[in-house]
C-alpha cells in the first residue's frame, strides 16, 4: 500500500522545513552579533534542499508502478547548510569593546526582513505537510473500516 509512503514524504518535508526554521532562528538571534575581524563574524546560514529519488532510497524494491526511468521521488532532503557570501556590514564604532585598531566593528550579513519572510514561508510549508499527513491518515483509517457496516 503506497499510502504508507505519504507519511515518509510528508515527514521528510516537515523535517526539512523545521531545519529551515532553525537556521532562520539562528540568523535572527545572531543578527547583531558584532566582532572585530571578518573571519570571526557570523554569516547568514541557508539550507539547501534537494528532492530524494526512490532509486537511491531502496534500489532493490523500487516501485514498478511507473515506467522505467521515471522514478518517482520520495520526499525532500537537506543537502547541507551554506553560509551567505554577501558582504559584512562594517560600522565605525570606536567605543565598542570589539572595535579593531581603526575603530571598525563587523556586523553579520543577516537581512532581518528577508529572514522574517523566510520564516513565514517555512512555517506555511510545514503546515501544508501536516495537512497532507492528516489527509493520508483519514484515508488510511477509512480503509481500515472496510467490510464493517
Amino acid at each position: 500500500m503506497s499510502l504508507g509512503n505519504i507519511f515518509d514524504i510528508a515527514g521528510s518535508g516537515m523535517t526539512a522545513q523545521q531545519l529551515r526554521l532553525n537556521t532562520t532562528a539562528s540568523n535572527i538571534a545572531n543578527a547583531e552579533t558584532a566582532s572585530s575581524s571578518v573571519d570571526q563574524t557570523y554569516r547568514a546560514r541557508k539550507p539547501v534542499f534537494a528532492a530524494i529519488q526512490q532509486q537511491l532510497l531502496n534500489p532493490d524494491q523500487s516501485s514498478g508502478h511507473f515506467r522505467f526511468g521515471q522514478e518517482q521521488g520520495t520526499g525532500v532532503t537537506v543537502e547541507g547548510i551554506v553560509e551567505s557570501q554577501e558582504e559584512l556590514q562594517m560600522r565605525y564604532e570606536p567605543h565598542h569593546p570589539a572595535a579593531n585598531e581603526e575603530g571598525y566593528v563587523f556586523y553579520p550579513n543577516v537581512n532581518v526582513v528577508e529572514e522574517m519572510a523566510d520564516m513565514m514561508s517555512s512555517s506555511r510549508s510545514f503546515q501544508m505537510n501536516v495537512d497532507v499527513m492528516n489527509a493520508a491518515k483519514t484515508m488510511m483509517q477509512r480503509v481500515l473500516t472496510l467490510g464493517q457496516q
Partner: protein
Amino acid sequence: MAITFDKALGIHEHALAARSQRAQVLANNLANADTPGYKARDVDFQSMLKQATEASQGEGMARTHPSHMDVSGSGGSPELLYRTPHQPSLDGNTVDAQQEQTRFMRNAMDFQASFEFLSSKFSGLSKAIKGE
C-alpha cells in the same frame, strides 16, 4: 456459479490503488514545494486505471523487477508526467503549493468516493450470503 472477487468488486478496487498512488505523487510535490529546480509531477488517472484493469484481466506479464521490459503493449504503465506551470519561479521550481493542495484534497475525496462504492459492494455481497 462461482463468485470471483474481481468480478464482484469491479473497477473500484483498482481505482482505490490508483488514487493512493496519485496521493503519493502529489504529497511528494508538496514536500518539495521549496526545493530549487524541482519539477512538479502528476499522473494521468485515466491511463493509470486503464492499465490496472487490463492487468487484472490477465493481459501482459507482470514486471517484478524495474529492469524488466515493458511488454504490456499500448496500454503500458502510467506515465509520470510533468506539470505545465502557470507561473514558474526563478529558482526553477514549478510547484504551485495551493494548486497542489487542492488536487491532493480532491484526490482524497475521490478516494473516499471509491471507497464508499467498494464498501457497499462488500455489504451487498454479505447481504446476499446471509439471505436477508
